[in-house]
């Protein structure tokens, strides 16, 4: 569920008995202790204040907030139903698509693997607003390009309507699929391929092998990926906001947002909604933990090294190739094209000769002349790099504790680092503003509060990357360094980190990329002069023009793609090795 199980380092003698105080003051204990304190603080304090302000009214402890939030005519039941339907649907779609792609990528000799990689990651880079806006232009029942150019000529009327729950599920699912893809690629690579080969040798068809061997064995990975997708959908507010409102579909996040807009802010009600969300997410966690209880039985990572050998697709190869291209076009090319097209217009209109005549780069000019554009870019880069660095630093140490020692309380640490996953972004933003309004330190209103939010949010992802990197190292590597006389710090710095560097770097890049598009907590925490690119986009969406919004989006995608390619060049493999 959290970090992959791995052979324990044999540093059992490392933790001194409780009585000896001097033994505790080593650099290792200080660093490790500091890391634990920080992670604990980041994970717990916001929740504590959220609870406090939800349950405290003018007269002390009260549960009135829940009545305000869920009672009366708030249609809470319908809201919950919508939220669950949306979350489950998108999680399922993302999982199916992501797993299918991961299987093709890792296990078969499907063509166009480079394209796979790009197709799988680009949706990760595009911010949710833009992705959704692009799909509006593609699949709106009246002006949707797909409806008008494809379906109307063939069927006589538009077929798809993005402003519906299935539409929301489609957009959110596709947007999340890259994350599922990355997770499942890692899972496939960790699975001994001879388990499937023996199925083939026993006479089973490919489908039978998939059904009876591969999927059951992947169950823990599938469950943990499903949980992640579920929580991310629950907390999504761009997709339900843009697509749900139009047909009256309200979810948790739309209600939280509504409550936060009034003055004076009903923090209690907002907190009550947030806690409701948390409760559902926590239930999901428990369910997934229960489903993976037979974890040991599914341990498929053997002691010996092996390389996955690709399944020969044979006759199916051209079909798979075709499907890949269609997928790539549908999920990457089309939305991007729509964005580029929109960014060149003065106001959005269906493609026509006239429209082409009015195309210009005015919107881009406007973006560059927007005073906050440069500030936003600078802030985004600064925040992204800092957050990525801090997250990987903390999680490298934390995963070392969890994976390679038997220190008391390491499971608690694992759980703490995992908790922010379950906290929706809006909720986190809310909680953090509660906390830092009271703190005398100059955090509120600076970039620091955004940094804290990002670090908290991405801790779980960092743990995943750092944890699997640490887990693959054999204990003897550390031990030999110690025997040679190296201190803990030196061993950590010069042996462990360099060896785990590939995984750590992959995590660093991931956090950098997703921090650029983070919106839900940012929107509550930014201040003048501290805008980031996602805020710029949101501002354009709320108060600017679609066309300028599209221009900002195109620029942002270009910047991030460049960043990723550069990092990729430097040998960071984001979970996708080239198989031979």
């Amino acid at each position: 569920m959290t970090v992959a199980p791995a052979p324990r380092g044999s540093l059992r003698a490392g933790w001194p008995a409780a009585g000896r105080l001097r033994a505790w003051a080593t650099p290792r204990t200080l660093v490790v202790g500091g890391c634990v304190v920080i992670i604990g603080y980041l994970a717990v304090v916001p929740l504590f204040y959220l609870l406090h302000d939800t349950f405290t009214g003018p007269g002390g402890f009260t549960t009135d907030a829940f009545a305000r939030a869920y009672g009366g005519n708030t249609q809470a039941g319908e809201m919950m139903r919508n939220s669950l339907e949306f979350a489950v649907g998108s999680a399922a779609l993302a999982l199916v698509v992501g797993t299918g792609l991961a299987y093709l990528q890792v296990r078969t000799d499907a063509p166009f693997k480079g394209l796979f990689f790009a197709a799988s990651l680009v949706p990760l880079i595009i911010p949710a607003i833009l992705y959704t806006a692009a799909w509006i232009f593609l699949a709106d029942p009246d002006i949707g390009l797909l409806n008008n150019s494809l379906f109307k000529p063939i069927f006589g009327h538009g077929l798809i309507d993005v402003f519906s729950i299935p539409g929301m599920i489609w957009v959110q699912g596709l947007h999340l699929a890259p994350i599922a893809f990355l997770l499942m690629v890692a899972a496939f690579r960790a699975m001994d391929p001879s388990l499937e080969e023996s199925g083939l040798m026993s006479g089973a068809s490919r489908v039978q092998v998939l059904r009876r061997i591969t999927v059951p064995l992947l169950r823990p990975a599938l469950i943990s990926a499903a949980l992640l997708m579920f929580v991310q959908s629950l907390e999504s507010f761009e997709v339900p906001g843009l697509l749900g409102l139009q047909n009256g579909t309200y979810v948790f996040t739309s209600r939280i947002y509504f409550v936060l807009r009034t003055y004076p802010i009903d923090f209690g009600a907002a907190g009550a909604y947030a806690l409701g969300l948390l409760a559902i997410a926590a239930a999901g966690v428990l369910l997934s933990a229960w489903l993976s209880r037979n974890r040991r039985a599914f341990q498929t990572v053997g002691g010996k090294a092996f390389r996955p050998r690709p399944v020969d697709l044979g006759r199916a190869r051209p079909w798979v190739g075709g499907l890949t291209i269609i997928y790539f076009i549908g999920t990457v090319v089309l939305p991007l094209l729509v964005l580029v097209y929109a960014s060149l217009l003065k106001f959005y209109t269906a493609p026509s000769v006239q429209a082409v005549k009015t195309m210009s780069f005015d919107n881009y000019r406007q973006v560059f002349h927007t005073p906050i554009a440069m500030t936003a870019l600078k802030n985004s880069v600064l925040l992204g790099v800092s957050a990525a660095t801090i997250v990987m630093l903390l999680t490298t140490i934390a995963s070392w504790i969890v994976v390679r020692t038997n220190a008391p309380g390491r499971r608690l640490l694992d759980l703490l680092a995992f908790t922010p996953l379950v906290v929706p972004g809006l909720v986190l933003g809310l909680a953090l503003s509660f906390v830092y309004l009271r703190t005398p330190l100059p955090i509120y209103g600076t970039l620091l509060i955004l940094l804290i939010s990002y670090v908290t949010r991405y801790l779980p992802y960092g743990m995943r990357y750092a944890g699997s990197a640490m887990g693959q190292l054999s204990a003897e590597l550390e031990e030999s360094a110690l025997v040679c006389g190296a201190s803990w710090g030196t061993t950590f710095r010069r042996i462990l980190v360099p060896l785990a560097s590939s995984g750590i770097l992959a995590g660093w890049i991931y956090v950098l990329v997703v921090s650029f598009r983070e919106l839900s907590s940012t929107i509550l925490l930014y201040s003048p002069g501290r805008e980031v690119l996602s805020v710029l986009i949101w501002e354009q969406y709320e108060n600017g023009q679609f066309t300028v919004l599209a221009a900002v989006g195109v620029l942002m995608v270009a910047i991030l793609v460049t960043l990723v390619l550069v990092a990729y060049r430097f040998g960071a493999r984001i979970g996708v090795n080239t198989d031979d």
Partner: protein
Amino acid sequence: MTDPMSSTVDTAALDHPDRPAGNAMLAVSGLCKTYSGEKQRRRRAAGLSAVAAVDEVSFEVAPGELFTLLGPSGCGKTTTLRSVAGLERPDGGTISVGGRVLYDAGRRVNVPANRRRLGMVFQSYAIWPHLSVFANVAFPLQVLPRRERPGKQGIEQRVGRVLEATELGHLADRPATKLSGGQQQRLALARALVVEPKLVLLDEPLSNLDAKLRESMRFELKRLQRELGLTAVYVTHDQSEALAMSSRIAVMQAGRIVQVGKPRDVYEHPNCAFVADFIGITNFIAGTVAAIDGDRCRVQTVDGDLWVAGGPPVAVGATVTLSIRPEAISLRTSPAGGSAGGAGTGSAGGTAPNRLRGTVVNRAFLGDSVDHVVAIGKTELRNRSNPAQSIAPGTEVTVLVDPDKVALVPE
């Protein structure tokens, strides 16, 4: 005596009287496979030169034989086995089992792995951890096409039978993960055998077991194979395993078959230095042919002359390498008979042993034998003796070697 020099090309093996005549169970001909581009680059970078993983490999396996592919890592034995299994696609050649063509590059025939009806035991056993012992073994029966699939009772019977044969009957309901290493190995075997395949493929099945278990499993496997009349292709890098179990061994190096023959033949009459060195331990001595006497020849070495009986025909003056197994060398401490120095005074004809003088330089007690290192002049020979005979270093000894046991290894 028969010509033991089975060469690298399969045609010579066809002349071997031990070759299965007519209906072979498995016939592999001209099998080729090159590494993919990425692997080629890596191998070149690592200083390895071979570009072909499998280079024109041909052999036949008779029904009831246990045929072993033996060689160091990277020699292509596993690739060959997996090509027979259908898990890898070769670049050329043909493969047929029981007369049925499974792969033919020329005629573009390639039967998918799951339709070849072969049994395979993987190196890691590949036991499915989410199924019980029974379910693991029942799986191949459950995925048979509908018309061939036995009913529920039929499956239970057949599975029960196979589990009994592999002594796992009492563990049928246990989760497969709760088995010991040896039991897992037998489970893998049971699963491979339940469909009664014509051919069983085994990919280093014993390498994960500890030494003692390995030894006992060797006998077990061999017994099962004989009792059930199985035809098997066995891949291993452990030469003692190959010698113990095989009907015939094919020694492979760098993608080619270097020698095929019965274990004894391969052991006693290696056709090249590689085989001689790879199988067992041997002593190499270089020399020149000084005289020929019928089917014996006298080879002049830097430390004395040795008579060699048998062996391929050579010309006087040819440089040759001699290979002598440690157990073919015996040592005598009592200065009994025989003049010092000089080659075998033994007259021509007969098999009077070669006699040399030397000094014991080192010895090691191995429990079931004692190894001595004896210096005869410049060369050091390694000898294996009965543990009762333990000679202290520094002692002068007489070294006796039977001319029959000296093998002439071609250059």
